[in-house]
């Protein structure tokens, strides 16, 4: 990969091409950190795949049941936590019933952290939401996609009790819920396996339930084929997706404020790519002449 292996004195362009990568690292660190000190809010348009997720929730009638699966761990918090909060805000604002679960061991904990944040909002606090009636946390069950499959027959096959150990039959919210037939929408926050792909393959393809998702930016593109085939309603991709959702919801929060750092860092990388290409072409010109 080394462009210059000859021992002759390197020209400026040659030096630039084989620049020590630690210099690039330094630029990135600065580009990310400095904007954090300026709390700036940016406006941006909402892309269609995000709008579709918003619409999927917005279309539900009050009292509809939404299953939210938390399939990530703290490693993806910066991207997915803002989405989780926005999902909860949206659901509670529209008086939807929320059933929380997780295919990742730490998932349901992330849900609790997000709930704590959301309950600080005045309008949601005013609703005086009650555990077991307005929302419930089923917790984690091991088994990955097998859990999804079994829930298609009966939730109780995977979750005999909620995360607090209360049998599902004793939870008012769960009484009318047997399987996906009784769920109006599944929201999935996913950072890998098991995640949205498994929900598509095992819940949507088999039991024909509606699904919308929030993904890390890495994962989101692999969901586009599923959106195109209608297996998935829409997807929020990474921090940008989260920020757009916050804007669609008219409730800017964390994701929107982080976007400034994001934008500067992208700019820096693009500049580096441009400089790299200028150096590459000036060298090539010199060689041919």
């Amino acid at each position, binding site marked *: 990969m080394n462009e210059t292996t000859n021992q002759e004195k390197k020209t400026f362009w040659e030096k630039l091409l084989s620049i020590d990568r630690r210099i690039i690292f330094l630029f990135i660190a600065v580009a990310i950190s400095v904007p954090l000190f300026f709390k700036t809010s*940016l406006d941006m348009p909402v892309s269609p795949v995000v709008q579709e997720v918003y619409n999927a929730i917005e279309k539900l009638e009050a009292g509809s049941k939404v299953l939210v699966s938390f399939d990530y761990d703290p490693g993806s918090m910066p991207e997915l936590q803002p989405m989780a909060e926005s999902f909860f805000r949206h659901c509670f604002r529209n008086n939807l019933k929320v059933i929380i679960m997780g295919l990742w061991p730490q998932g349901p904990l992330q849900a609790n952290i997000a709930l704590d944040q959301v309950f600080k909002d005045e309008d949601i606090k005013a609703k005086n939401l009650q555990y077991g009636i307005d929302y419930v946390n089923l917790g984690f069950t091991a088994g990955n996609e097998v859990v999804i499959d079994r829930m298609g027959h009966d939730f109780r096959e995977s979750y005999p009790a909620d995360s607090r150990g209360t049998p599902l039959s004793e939870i008012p919210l769960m009484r009318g819920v047997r399987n996906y037939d009784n769920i109006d929408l599944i929201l999935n926050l996913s950072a890998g396996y098991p995640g949205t792909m498994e929900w598509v393959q095992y819940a949507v393809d088999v039991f024909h339930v509606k699904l919308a998702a929030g993904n890390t930016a890495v994962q989101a593109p692999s969901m586009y084929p599923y959106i195109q085939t209608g297996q998935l309603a829409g997807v929020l991709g990474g921090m940008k997706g989260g920020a757009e959702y916050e804007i669609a919801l008219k409730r800017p929060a964390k994701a929107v404020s982080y976007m400034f750092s994001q934008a500067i860092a992208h700019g820096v990388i693009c500049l580096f790519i441009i400089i790299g290409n200028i150096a590459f072409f000036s060298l090539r010109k010199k060689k041919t002449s």
Partner: protein
Amino acid sequence: MRREVPLILTAIVGITMIIAHFIPPLNILKNLFEDWFFIIAAFAIYLGILNLILVNGDKIYKKQKGWLFGAVVILGFLVITIIGIFFSGGKSFQDPGTPFYYIYMNLYYPLSATMFALLAFFVASASYRAFRARNVEATMLLLAAFILMLGRVPIGEWISAWLPEGYRLGDAADWIMDFPMTAGQKAIMIGIALGVVSSALRVILGLERAYSAGE
């Protein structure tokens, strides 16, 4: 025995799993086999752990270079294991408030998240090196990456704000994601499907059996 049993077992189990997909009453086997897999893996982890301890223990015993770090590995392992198995309330070991959770949040999580965050730097250095317009293919790679990188953040909106709606960088990025990217990805996915089918068959037919032959 040594050679035949594994081959026959693989073939029978593999074919059963394929057939079970089409015969509803056999579905129960799928769940059962997956549970067995988890049980086997739960047993096998002792082999891995034993190996880890032996390798690092050997380092300490022989006072090899960096033996102190070997001690850190073993100590870290023992502390969290003993706490997790015996002192964190059994099955609810991950609940907030347990000592296991404390170690998780304050040691494991920062280490894991920081390792993950290193990617931000590596993405920058890799793109600087790889994205040069050497030929047609490399140029396409570069252009697609460039448009996506700018189109996904507000900078893209600012520098293309003078263009009419539907023609800005963000829109171009969306179009790339929706059509050429989806097309390329579909091709890869369909290829993978056939690759999996073919290697699964090779395994089931016993043509690819390095894992179970020998002696």
